[in-house]
Protein backbone atom coordinates (compact mmCIF):
# COMPACT_ATOMS: atom_id res chain seq x y z
CA UNK A 1 0.00 0.00 0.00
CA UNK A 2 1.31 3.40 -0.92
CA UNK A 3 -0.06 5.21 2.07
CA UNK A 4 2.16 3.24 4.35
CA UNK A 5 5.16 4.96 2.83
CA UNK A 6 3.57 8.30 3.59
CA UNK A 7 1.96 7.86 6.96
CA UNK A 8 5.10 6.72 8.76
CA UNK A 9 4.70 5.86 12.42
CA UNK A 10 6.89 8.82 13.23
CA UNK A 11 4.63 11.22 11.38
CA UNK A 12 1.54 9.92 13.12
CA UNK A 13 3.40 10.12 16.42
CA UNK A 14 4.30 13.78 15.89
CA UNK A 15 0.77 14.50 14.71
CA UNK A 16 -0.82 12.97 17.76
CA UNK A 17 1.76 14.45 20.15
CA UNK A 18 3.06 17.66 18.61
CA UNK A 19 6.30 19.02 20.05
CA UNK A 20 6.61 22.64 21.03
CA UNK A 21 3.18 23.63 19.83
CA UNK A 22 1.75 26.95 21.02
CA UNK A 23 2.84 30.55 20.52
CA UNK A 24 5.39 31.79 23.02
CA UNK A 25 6.89 35.12 24.04
CA UNK A 26 9.37 36.67 23.49
CA UNK A 27 10.04 36.42 19.77
CA UNK A 28 11.97 38.29 17.09
CA UNK A 29 9.66 37.64 14.17
CA UNK A 30 6.21 36.22 13.62
CA UNK A 31 4.83 35.08 10.26
CA UNK A 32 1.52 33.71 9.12
CA UNK A 33 1.47 31.35 6.15
CA UNK A 34 -1.51 29.81 4.43
CA UNK A 35 -1.87 26.96 1.97
CA UNK A 36 -4.81 28.27 0.00
CA UNK A 37 -5.57 25.00 -1.75
CA UNK A 38 -6.50 23.29 1.49
CA UNK A 39 -6.88 26.02 4.05
CA UNK A 40 -3.93 24.88 6.14
CA UNK A 41 -2.54 27.73 8.18
CA UNK A 42 0.39 28.31 10.44
CA UNK A 43 1.48 31.14 12.66
CA UNK A 44 5.11 30.76 13.54
CA UNK A 45 7.51 32.70 15.78
CA UNK A 46 11.26 32.63 15.90
CA UNK A 47 13.36 33.73 18.85
CA UNK A 48 17.07 34.13 18.19
CA UNK A 49 19.53 33.49 20.98
CA UNK A 50 23.27 34.01 21.47
CA UNK A 51 25.87 32.87 19.01
CA UNK A 52 23.51 32.74 16.04
CA UNK A 53 21.47 30.04 17.75
CA UNK A 54 17.75 29.54 17.45
CA UNK A 55 16.39 29.80 20.96
CA UNK A 56 12.80 28.88 20.20
CA UNK A 57 10.46 28.09 17.35
CA UNK A 58 6.88 28.32 18.53
CA UNK A 59 3.83 27.83 16.34
CA UNK A 60 0.13 27.30 16.14
CA UNK A 61 -2.07 26.38 13.24
CA UNK A 62 -4.45 23.96 11.73
CA UNK A 63 -3.99 21.41 9.05
CA UNK A 64 -3.58 17.82 8.14
CA UNK A 65 -1.35 15.30 9.84
CA UNK A 66 1.48 16.02 7.43
CA UNK A 67 1.54 19.77 7.99
CA UNK A 68 1.14 19.40 11.75
CA UNK A 69 3.78 16.73 12.06
CA UNK A 70 6.17 18.71 9.85
CA UNK A 71 5.89 21.69 12.17
CA UNK A 72 6.55 19.50 15.16
CA UNK A 73 9.63 17.95 13.57
CA UNK A 74 10.82 21.39 12.50
CA UNK A 75 10.55 22.62 16.09
CA UNK A 76 12.70 19.75 17.28
CA UNK A 77 15.33 20.16 14.60
CA UNK A 78 15.65 23.93 14.59
CA UNK A 79 15.52 24.74 18.29
CA UNK A 80 19.03 24.84 19.65
CA UNK A 81 20.77 24.68 16.30
CA UNK A 82 22.40 27.65 14.59
CA UNK A 83 20.52 29.69 11.99
CA UNK A 84 22.94 28.47 9.39
CA UNK A 85 22.63 24.80 10.27
CA UNK A 86 18.87 24.98 10.42
CA UNK A 87 18.64 26.69 7.04
CA UNK A 88 20.72 23.99 5.46
CA UNK A 89 18.29 21.44 6.89
CA UNK A 90 15.44 23.47 5.40
CA UNK A 91 17.19 23.43 2.04
CA UNK A 92 17.72 19.71 2.13
CA UNK A 93 14.14 19.13 3.21
CA UNK A 94 12.88 21.34 0.38
CA UNK A 95 15.04 19.48 -2.10
CA UNK A 96 13.67 16.17 -0.88
CA UNK A 97 10.07 17.35 -0.99
CA UNK A 98 10.33 18.83 -4.47
CA UNK A 99 12.14 15.80 -5.82
CA UNK A 100 8.94 13.97 -6.81
CA UNK A 101 10.24 10.87 -5.04
CA UNK A 102 13.35 10.80 -7.24
CA UNK A 103 15.71 12.36 -4.71
CA UNK A 104 17.68 10.33 -2.17
CA UNK A 105 17.25 11.82 1.30
CA UNK A 106 20.38 12.71 3.27
CA UNK A 107 19.58 11.19 6.67
CA UNK A 108 22.57 12.77 8.33
CA UNK A 109 21.26 16.23 7.58
CA UNK A 110 17.56 15.54 7.96
CA UNK A 111 17.32 13.39 11.05
CA UNK A 112 13.68 12.61 11.84
CA UNK A 113 12.53 14.69 8.89
CA UNK A 114 13.57 11.82 6.67
CA UNK A 115 10.26 10.22 7.58
CA UNK A 116 8.62 12.61 5.13
CA UNK A 117 10.41 11.12 2.13
CA UNK A 118 7.23 9.29 1.11
CA UNK A 119 5.30 12.57 0.92
CA UNK A 120 7.44 13.73 -1.97
CA UNK A 121 5.56 11.35 -4.24
CA UNK A 122 2.33 13.27 -3.67
CA UNK A 123 2.69 16.73 -5.20
CA UNK A 124 -0.56 17.87 -3.61
CA UNK A 125 0.78 17.08 -0.16
CA UNK A 126 4.24 18.51 -0.62
CA UNK A 127 2.83 21.94 0.14
CA UNK A 128 1.49 20.62 3.43
CA UNK A 129 4.88 19.32 4.46
CA UNK A 130 6.62 22.52 3.42
CA UNK A 131 4.16 24.99 4.95
CA UNK A 132 5.85 25.34 8.34
CA UNK A 133 9.35 25.04 6.89
CA UNK A 134 8.76 27.88 4.46
CA UNK A 135 7.22 29.92 7.25
CA UNK A 136 10.31 29.24 9.32
CA UNK A 137 12.64 30.37 6.55
CA UNK A 138 10.60 33.52 6.13
CA UNK A 139 10.61 34.22 9.87
CA UNK A 140 14.37 33.77 10.09
CA UNK A 141 14.90 36.26 7.27
CA UNK A 142 12.64 38.77 8.96
CA UNK A 143 14.27 38.38 12.35
CA UNK A 144 17.70 39.15 10.93
Amino acid sequence: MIAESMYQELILEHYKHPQGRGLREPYDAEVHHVNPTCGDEITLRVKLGDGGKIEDVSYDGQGCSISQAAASVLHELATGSTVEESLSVVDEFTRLMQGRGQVEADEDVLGDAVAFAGVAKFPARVKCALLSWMAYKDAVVRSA
Partner: protein
Amino acid sequence: MSAVFDVERVRKDFPVLSRELSGGRPLVYLDSGNSSQKPTQVIETMRDHFAMHYSNVGRAHHALGTESTDAYEAARDKVAAFVGAPSRDEIIFTKNASEALNLVAYSFGNRTNDDPRFTLGPGDEIVISEMEHHSNIVPWQMLVQRTGATLKWFGVTDEGRLDLADGVITERTKIVSVAHQSNVLGTVNPVAEVARRAHEVGALVLLDASQSVPHHPVDLAALGADLVAFTGHKMLGPSGIGVLWGRTELLEAMPPFLGGGEMIEAVWMDRSTYAPVPHKFEAGTPPIVEAIGLGAAVDYLNGVGMQAIEEHERALTAYALEALGEVPTLRIIGPKGLDGRGGTLSFTMEGIHPHDVGQILDDQFGVAVRVGHHCARPLHLRFGIPATTRASFYLYNTTGEIDALVKGLHHVQKVFA
Protein backbone atom coordinates in the same frame (compact mmCIF):
# COMPACT_ATOMS: atom_id res chain seq x y z
CA MET B 1 -29.36 2.46 -25.09
CA SER B 2 -32.47 1.09 -23.46
CA ALA B 3 -34.89 3.18 -21.46
CA VAL B 4 -34.21 1.09 -18.36
CA PHE B 5 -31.16 2.37 -16.55
CA ASP B 6 -28.43 -0.24 -16.39
CA VAL B 7 -25.45 1.11 -14.51
CA GLU B 8 -23.19 -1.81 -15.38
CA ARG B 9 -23.82 -1.18 -19.02
CA VAL B 10 -23.14 2.51 -18.61
CA ARG B 11 -19.88 1.76 -16.82
CA LYS B 12 -18.61 -0.21 -19.81
CA ASP B 13 -18.63 3.01 -21.81
CA PHE B 14 -16.09 4.63 -19.49
CA PRO B 15 -12.68 3.08 -20.06
CA VAL B 16 -11.10 4.51 -16.92
CA LEU B 17 -13.63 2.77 -14.69
CA SER B 18 -12.00 -0.54 -15.46
CA ARG B 19 -8.63 0.77 -14.48
CA GLU B 20 -6.58 -0.65 -11.66
CA LEU B 21 -4.53 1.83 -9.71
CA SER B 22 -1.08 0.87 -8.49
CA GLY B 23 -1.17 -1.81 -5.86
CA GLY B 24 -4.12 -3.42 -7.60
CA ARG B 25 -6.73 -1.06 -6.20
CA PRO B 26 -9.76 -0.75 -8.47
CA LEU B 27 -10.71 2.88 -9.10
CA VAL B 28 -13.74 4.19 -7.20
CA TYR B 29 -14.34 7.59 -8.74
CA LEU B 30 -16.48 9.77 -6.49
CA ASP B 31 -15.21 13.12 -7.74
CA SER B 32 -17.51 13.93 -10.65
CA GLY B 33 -18.51 17.23 -9.08
CA ASN B 34 -14.92 18.24 -9.74
CA SER B 35 -14.79 16.83 -13.24
CA SER B 36 -16.55 13.87 -14.82
CA GLN B 37 -15.04 10.95 -16.67
CA LYS B 38 -15.57 10.60 -20.43
CA PRO B 39 -17.34 7.85 -22.35
CA THR B 40 -15.72 6.17 -25.34
CA GLN B 41 -18.30 7.88 -27.55
CA VAL B 42 -16.90 11.30 -26.68
CA ILE B 43 -13.27 10.24 -26.86
CA GLU B 44 -13.68 8.55 -30.23
CA THR B 45 -15.69 11.41 -31.72
CA MET B 46 -12.84 13.76 -30.90
CA ARG B 47 -10.19 11.40 -32.12
CA ASP B 48 -11.98 10.82 -35.38
CA HIS B 49 -12.45 14.51 -35.94
CA PHE B 50 -8.79 15.31 -35.26
CA ALA B 51 -7.63 12.40 -37.40
CA MET B 52 -9.83 12.78 -40.47
CA HIS B 53 -11.91 15.98 -40.55
CA TYR B 54 -10.10 18.72 -38.72
CA SER B 55 -9.59 22.24 -39.93
CA ASN B 56 -10.42 25.71 -38.73
CA VAL B 57 -14.08 26.72 -38.72
CA GLY B 58 -16.02 29.57 -40.26
CA ARG B 59 -13.12 31.07 -42.09
CA ALA B 60 -12.13 28.00 -44.09
CA HIS B 61 -14.13 27.36 -47.24
CA HIS B 62 -12.70 24.02 -48.34
CA ALA B 63 -13.97 20.51 -47.78
CA LEU B 64 -12.36 20.02 -44.37
CA GLY B 65 -13.35 23.53 -43.33
CA THR B 66 -16.92 22.69 -44.15
CA GLU B 67 -16.79 19.44 -42.21
CA SER B 68 -15.36 21.12 -39.12
CA THR B 69 -17.75 24.04 -39.35
CA ASP B 70 -20.74 21.74 -39.78
CA ALA B 71 -19.70 19.61 -36.83
CA TYR B 72 -18.94 22.63 -34.65
CA GLU B 73 -22.25 24.29 -35.42
CA ALA B 74 -24.11 21.01 -35.02
CA ALA B 75 -22.65 20.85 -31.50
CA ARG B 76 -24.24 24.23 -30.86
CA ASP B 77 -27.58 22.87 -32.04
CA LYS B 78 -27.23 19.89 -29.74
CA VAL B 79 -26.33 21.93 -26.68
CA ALA B 80 -29.16 24.37 -27.40
CA ALA B 81 -31.67 21.54 -27.63
CA PHE B 82 -30.26 19.84 -24.55
CA VAL B 83 -30.94 22.81 -22.28
CA GLY B 84 -34.04 24.07 -24.09
CA ALA B 85 -32.52 27.29 -25.39
CA PRO B 86 -35.12 29.22 -27.40
CA SER B 87 -32.54 29.85 -30.12
CA ARG B 88 -29.36 28.00 -31.07
CA ASP B 89 -27.63 31.34 -31.59
CA GLU B 90 -27.97 32.02 -27.88
CA ILE B 91 -25.38 29.33 -27.12
CA ILE B 92 -21.92 30.86 -26.78
CA PHE B 93 -18.95 28.55 -26.50
CA THR B 94 -16.34 29.61 -23.94
CA LYS B 95 -13.39 27.70 -22.54
CA ASN B 96 -15.10 26.89 -19.24
CA ALA B 97 -17.82 28.12 -16.92
CA SER B 98 -15.41 30.60 -15.39
CA GLU B 99 -14.90 32.39 -18.71
CA ALA B 100 -18.67 32.50 -19.17
CA LEU B 101 -19.16 34.10 -15.75
CA ASN B 102 -16.34 36.57 -16.34
CA LEU B 103 -17.75 37.46 -19.74
CA VAL B 104 -20.95 38.58 -18.07
CA ALA B 105 -19.11 40.42 -15.29
CA TYR B 106 -16.98 42.29 -17.85
CA SER B 107 -20.08 43.45 -19.70
CA PHE B 108 -20.90 45.74 -16.78
CA GLY B 109 -19.37 49.16 -16.33
CA ASN B 110 -17.92 49.27 -19.83
CA ARG B 111 -17.69 52.91 -20.85
CA THR B 112 -18.41 52.09 -24.48
CA ASN B 113 -21.86 50.69 -23.72
CA ASP B 114 -24.69 52.86 -22.48
CA ASP B 115 -27.42 50.26 -22.16
CA PRO B 116 -28.67 51.15 -18.65
CA ARG B 117 -28.81 47.51 -17.62
CA PHE B 118 -25.04 47.28 -17.94
CA THR B 119 -23.86 50.62 -16.61
CA LEU B 120 -22.24 50.25 -13.21
CA GLY B 121 -20.78 52.64 -10.69
CA PRO B 122 -20.87 53.71 -7.06
CA GLY B 123 -24.31 53.11 -5.58
CA ASP B 124 -25.06 50.19 -7.87
CA GLU B 125 -25.19 46.75 -6.31
CA ILE B 126 -24.42 43.22 -7.32
CA VAL B 127 -25.86 40.28 -5.42
CA ILE B 128 -24.31 36.82 -5.10
CA SER B 129 -24.42 34.28 -2.28
CA GLU B 130 -22.19 32.82 0.36
CA MET B 131 -22.37 29.37 -1.23
CA GLU B 132 -20.88 30.40 -4.56
CA HIS B 133 -17.91 28.81 -6.25
CA HIS B 134 -14.93 31.20 -6.44
CA SER B 135 -15.66 31.53 -10.15
CA ASN B 136 -18.93 33.23 -9.25
CA ILE B 137 -17.36 35.40 -6.55
CA VAL B 138 -14.01 36.69 -7.74
CA PRO B 139 -15.20 38.12 -11.11
CA TRP B 140 -17.72 40.25 -9.19
CA GLN B 141 -15.17 41.34 -6.62
CA MET B 142 -12.88 42.43 -9.43
CA LEU B 143 -15.78 44.23 -11.11
CA VAL B 144 -16.82 46.21 -8.06
CA GLN B 145 -13.19 47.12 -7.41
CA ARG B 146 -12.91 48.45 -10.95
CA THR B 147 -16.18 50.38 -10.86
CA GLY B 148 -16.86 51.39 -7.28
CA ALA B 149 -20.10 49.42 -7.14
CA THR B 150 -21.05 47.33 -4.09
CA LEU B 151 -21.04 43.56 -3.71
CA LYS B 152 -23.75 42.03 -1.53
CA TRP B 153 -24.72 38.44 -0.87
CA PHE B 154 -27.33 36.10 0.49
CA GLY B 155 -26.17 34.15 3.52
CA VAL B 156 -26.52 30.43 4.01
CA THR B 157 -28.61 28.81 6.78
CA ASP B 158 -27.23 26.17 9.14
CA GLU B 159 -29.02 23.57 7.01
CA GLY B 160 -27.12 24.78 3.97
CA ARG B 161 -29.98 26.61 2.29
CA LEU B 162 -29.90 30.01 0.68
CA ASP B 163 -31.05 32.54 3.27
CA LEU B 164 -33.32 34.69 1.12
CA ALA B 165 -33.44 37.52 3.62
CA ASP B 166 -35.20 40.71 2.57
CA GLY B 167 -33.13 43.74 1.82
CA VAL B 168 -30.34 42.02 -0.03
CA ILE B 169 -31.91 42.68 -3.42
CA THR B 170 -32.83 46.36 -3.65
CA GLU B 171 -33.77 48.91 -6.27
CA ARG B 172 -30.04 49.42 -6.77
CA THR B 173 -29.36 45.79 -7.69
CA LYS B 174 -28.16 45.37 -11.29
CA ILE B 175 -27.62 41.64 -11.35
CA VAL B 176 -28.15 38.63 -9.10
CA SER B 177 -25.77 35.77 -9.79
CA VAL B 178 -26.22 32.51 -7.90
CA ALA B 179 -25.54 28.82 -8.26
CA HIS B 180 -28.31 26.55 -9.41
CA GLN B 181 -26.83 23.74 -7.33
CA SER B 182 -24.06 24.16 -4.77
CA ASN B 183 -20.87 22.28 -5.55
CA VAL B 184 -20.27 21.69 -1.82
CA LEU B 185 -23.67 21.36 -0.15
CA GLY B 186 -25.54 19.79 -3.02
CA THR B 187 -28.32 22.29 -2.31
CA VAL B 188 -30.55 23.10 -5.27
CA ASN B 189 -31.54 26.75 -5.02
CA PRO B 190 -35.05 28.19 -5.64
CA VAL B 191 -34.20 29.88 -8.92
CA ALA B 192 -37.74 30.95 -9.73
CA GLU B 193 -38.07 32.79 -6.43
CA VAL B 194 -34.69 34.49 -6.80
CA ALA B 195 -35.54 35.48 -10.37
CA ARG B 196 -38.93 36.81 -9.33
CA ARG B 197 -37.37 39.08 -6.73
CA ALA B 198 -34.60 40.21 -9.03
CA HIS B 199 -36.93 40.96 -11.91
CA GLU B 200 -39.23 42.90 -9.59
CA VAL B 201 -36.51 45.49 -9.21
CA GLY B 202 -35.37 45.25 -12.82
CA ALA B 203 -32.18 43.33 -12.07
CA LEU B 204 -30.79 40.64 -14.33
CA VAL B 205 -30.37 37.04 -13.20
CA LEU B 206 -27.29 34.96 -13.99
CA LEU B 207 -27.39 31.32 -13.03
CA ASP B 208 -24.25 29.28 -12.45
CA ALA B 209 -25.58 25.95 -13.64
CA SER B 210 -22.22 24.17 -13.64
CA GLN B 211 -23.50 21.60 -11.15
CA SER B 212 -27.09 21.28 -12.37
CA VAL B 213 -27.00 20.92 -16.14
CA PRO B 214 -24.89 17.72 -15.92
CA HIS B 215 -27.24 16.03 -13.46
CA HIS B 216 -30.84 17.11 -14.07
CA PRO B 217 -33.13 17.75 -16.99
CA VAL B 218 -32.82 21.53 -17.39
CA ASP B 219 -35.13 23.73 -19.43
CA LEU B 220 -33.59 27.18 -19.72
CA ALA B 221 -36.72 28.68 -21.18
CA ALA B 222 -38.64 27.67 -18.05
CA LEU B 223 -36.04 28.59 -15.43
CA GLY B 224 -36.59 32.32 -15.47
CA ALA B 225 -32.91 33.31 -15.58
CA ASP B 226 -31.58 35.79 -18.12
CA LEU B 227 -28.14 34.25 -18.45
CA VAL B 228 -26.85 30.77 -17.63
CA ALA B 229 -23.30 29.44 -17.44
CA PHE B 230 -22.17 25.83 -17.41
CA THR B 231 -19.14 23.77 -18.30
CA GLY B 232 -18.40 20.80 -20.55
CA HIS B 233 -15.95 18.82 -18.46
CA LYS B 234 -18.49 18.17 -15.71
CA MET B 235 -21.03 16.69 -18.15
CA LEU B 236 -18.96 13.98 -19.85
CA GLY B 237 -17.46 16.49 -22.28
CA PRO B 238 -13.78 17.32 -22.69
CA SER B 239 -11.80 19.98 -20.89
CA GLY B 240 -11.52 23.35 -22.61
CA ILE B 241 -15.18 23.99 -23.37
CA GLY B 242 -17.86 25.92 -21.50
CA VAL B 243 -21.17 27.53 -22.36
CA LEU B 244 -22.89 30.82 -21.80
CA TRP B 245 -26.53 31.06 -22.67
CA GLY B 246 -28.37 34.37 -22.75
CA ARG B 247 -31.52 35.81 -24.26
CA THR B 248 -30.70 37.10 -27.75
CA GLU B 249 -31.84 40.61 -27.00
CA LEU B 250 -29.60 40.71 -23.94
CA LEU B 251 -26.56 39.28 -25.67
CA GLU B 252 -27.03 41.87 -28.38
CA ALA B 253 -27.13 44.63 -25.79
CA MET B 254 -23.89 43.48 -24.14
CA PRO B 255 -20.57 44.85 -25.32
CA PRO B 256 -18.15 42.34 -26.84
CA PHE B 257 -15.69 40.82 -24.41
CA LEU B 258 -12.69 39.31 -26.21
CA GLY B 259 -11.81 41.04 -29.47
CA GLY B 260 -10.31 39.35 -32.51
CA GLY B 261 -10.85 37.13 -35.49
CA GLU B 262 -14.34 35.77 -36.15
CA MET B 263 -16.14 38.11 -33.73
CA ILE B 264 -16.11 40.95 -36.22
CA GLU B 265 -18.20 42.04 -39.14
CA ALA B 266 -15.71 44.52 -40.60
CA VAL B 267 -12.45 45.95 -39.31
CA TRP B 268 -10.68 49.17 -40.12
CA MET B 269 -7.54 50.31 -38.31
CA ASP B 270 -9.50 52.70 -36.13
CA ARG B 271 -12.82 50.94 -35.61
CA SER B 272 -14.72 47.70 -36.07
CA THR B 273 -18.24 46.43 -36.32
CA TYR B 274 -19.14 43.16 -34.70
CA ALA B 275 -20.66 39.92 -35.85
CA PRO B 276 -24.10 38.92 -34.62
CA VAL B 277 -24.36 36.56 -31.63
CA PRO B 278 -23.09 33.99 -30.91
CA HIS B 279 -19.95 34.83 -32.91
CA LYS B 280 -19.63 38.28 -31.35
CA PHE B 281 -18.47 36.51 -28.18
CA GLU B 282 -16.26 33.88 -29.80
CA ALA B 283 -13.00 35.64 -30.64
CA GLY B 284 -10.27 33.68 -32.36
CA THR B 285 -10.20 30.01 -33.15
CA PRO B 286 -12.76 28.47 -30.80
CA PRO B 287 -12.31 25.16 -28.95
CA ILE B 288 -13.53 23.40 -32.09
CA VAL B 289 -13.04 19.75 -31.34
CA GLU B 290 -13.91 20.38 -27.70
CA ALA B 291 -17.32 21.71 -28.73
CA ILE B 292 -17.75 18.70 -30.99
CA GLY B 293 -16.83 16.47 -28.04
CA LEU B 294 -19.40 18.25 -25.90
CA GLY B 295 -21.96 17.61 -28.62
CA ALA B 296 -21.14 13.91 -28.41
CA ALA B 297 -21.48 14.08 -24.62
CA VAL B 298 -24.93 15.60 -24.98
CA ASP B 299 -25.88 12.83 -27.39
CA TYR B 300 -24.70 10.31 -24.86
CA LEU B 301 -26.61 11.90 -21.99
CA ASN B 302 -29.74 12.04 -24.12
CA GLY B 303 -29.27 8.40 -25.00
CA VAL B 304 -29.22 7.41 -21.35
CA GLY B 305 -31.89 9.94 -20.49
CA MET B 306 -31.50 12.83 -18.07
CA GLN B 307 -34.56 11.72 -16.15
CA ALA B 308 -33.03 8.29 -15.61
CA ILE B 309 -29.72 9.86 -14.58
CA GLU B 310 -31.43 12.11 -12.07
CA GLU B 311 -33.30 9.16 -10.55
CA HIS B 312 -30.19 7.02 -10.38
CA GLU B 313 -28.27 9.77 -8.61
CA ARG B 314 -31.17 10.32 -6.26
CA ALA B 315 -31.13 6.66 -5.28
CA LEU B 316 -27.35 6.83 -4.73
CA THR B 317 -27.75 9.96 -2.63
CA ALA B 318 -30.42 8.37 -0.46
CA TYR B 319 -28.18 5.35 0.03
CA ALA B 320 -25.15 7.50 0.85
CA LEU B 321 -26.98 9.78 3.28
CA GLU B 322 -28.02 6.72 5.23
CA ALA B 323 -24.67 4.94 5.05
CA LEU B 324 -22.62 8.01 6.00
CA GLY B 325 -25.03 8.77 8.82
CA GLU B 326 -23.72 5.66 10.53
CA VAL B 327 -20.05 6.62 10.47
CA PRO B 328 -19.16 7.89 13.96
CA THR B 329 -18.38 11.64 14.28
CA LEU B 330 -19.12 12.19 10.59
CA ARG B 331 -21.03 15.44 10.06
CA ILE B 332 -22.64 16.29 6.76
CA ILE B 333 -22.44 19.95 5.75
CA GLY B 334 -25.60 20.64 3.78
CA PRO B 335 -29.12 19.24 3.57
CA LYS B 336 -29.43 15.93 5.36
CA GLY B 337 -32.57 14.88 3.53
CA LEU B 338 -33.22 14.17 -0.13
CA ASP B 339 -35.37 17.20 -0.82
CA GLY B 340 -33.90 20.01 -2.88
CA ARG B 341 -30.45 18.54 -3.14
CA GLY B 342 -28.29 16.73 -5.67
CA GLY B 343 -25.72 13.97 -5.38
CA THR B 344 -22.91 15.91 -3.73
CA LEU B 345 -22.10 15.16 -0.08
CA SER B 346 -19.51 17.10 1.89
CA PHE B 347 -18.61 16.18 5.42
CA THR B 348 -16.14 16.51 8.26
CA MET B 349 -14.88 13.90 10.70
CA GLU B 350 -13.95 14.96 14.19
CA GLY B 351 -10.26 15.50 14.71
CA ILE B 352 -9.23 14.27 11.28
CA HIS B 353 -8.23 16.64 8.55
CA PRO B 354 -9.91 16.05 5.17
CA HIS B 355 -6.48 15.82 3.56
CA ASP B 356 -5.76 12.79 5.63
CA VAL B 357 -9.17 11.33 4.93
CA GLY B 358 -8.72 11.77 1.20
CA GLN B 359 -5.20 10.42 1.18
CA ILE B 360 -6.02 7.21 3.00
CA LEU B 361 -9.16 6.67 0.92
CA ASP B 362 -7.12 7.08 -2.23
CA ASP B 363 -4.00 5.19 -1.24
CA GLN B 364 -5.57 2.21 0.40
CA PHE B 365 -9.00 1.93 -1.19
CA GLY B 366 -8.67 3.63 -4.58
CA VAL B 367 -11.54 5.89 -3.59
CA ALA B 368 -11.19 9.31 -5.26
CA VAL B 369 -12.96 12.07 -3.36
CA ARG B 370 -12.17 15.75 -3.22
CA VAL B 371 -10.76 17.35 -0.10
CA GLY B 372 -10.30 21.02 0.69
CA HIS B 373 -12.61 23.98 0.26
CA HIS B 374 -13.69 22.97 -3.24
CA CYS B 375 -13.24 26.53 -4.52
CA ALA B 376 -15.84 27.70 -2.04
CA ARG B 377 -13.75 29.04 0.80
CA PRO B 378 -16.30 31.60 2.03
CA LEU B 379 -18.86 28.84 2.46
CA HIS B 380 -16.39 26.90 4.60
CA LEU B 381 -15.62 30.02 6.62
CA ARG B 382 -19.37 30.36 7.15
CA PHE B 383 -19.43 26.91 8.72
CA GLY B 384 -16.24 27.59 10.66
CA ILE B 385 -14.28 24.79 9.03
CA PRO B 386 -11.21 25.02 6.84
CA ALA B 387 -12.06 22.09 4.62
CA THR B 388 -14.37 19.17 3.97
CA THR B 389 -14.23 15.81 2.27
CA ARG B 390 -16.63 15.63 -0.66
CA ALA B 391 -18.11 12.64 -2.45
CA SER B 392 -20.03 13.44 -5.62
CA PHE B 393 -21.93 10.98 -7.78
CA TYR B 394 -22.77 10.59 -11.43
CA LEU B 395 -24.53 8.17 -13.71
CA TYR B 396 -21.72 5.60 -13.55
CA ASN B 397 -21.53 5.28 -9.77
CA THR B 398 -22.89 2.34 -7.78
CA THR B 399 -24.00 1.61 -4.24
CA GLY B 400 -21.03 -0.75 -4.07
CA GLU B 401 -18.77 2.26 -4.50
CA ILE B 402 -20.51 4.01 -1.64
CA ASP B 403 -19.88 0.89 0.47
CA ALA B 404 -16.19 1.15 -0.43
CA LEU B 405 -16.22 4.77 0.69
CA VAL B 406 -17.80 3.91 4.03
CA LYS B 407 -15.41 1.04 4.60
CA GLY B 408 -12.53 3.41 3.88
CA LEU B 409 -13.84 5.99 6.32
CA HIS B 410 -13.95 3.41 9.09
CA HIS B 411 -10.33 2.58 8.39
CA VAL B 412 -9.37 6.26 8.42
CA GLN B 413 -10.79 6.50 11.90
CA LYS B 414 -8.68 3.59 13.00
CA VAL B 415 -5.44 5.12 11.67
CA PHE B 416 -5.98 8.44 13.43
CA ALA B 417 -7.67 7.10 16.57
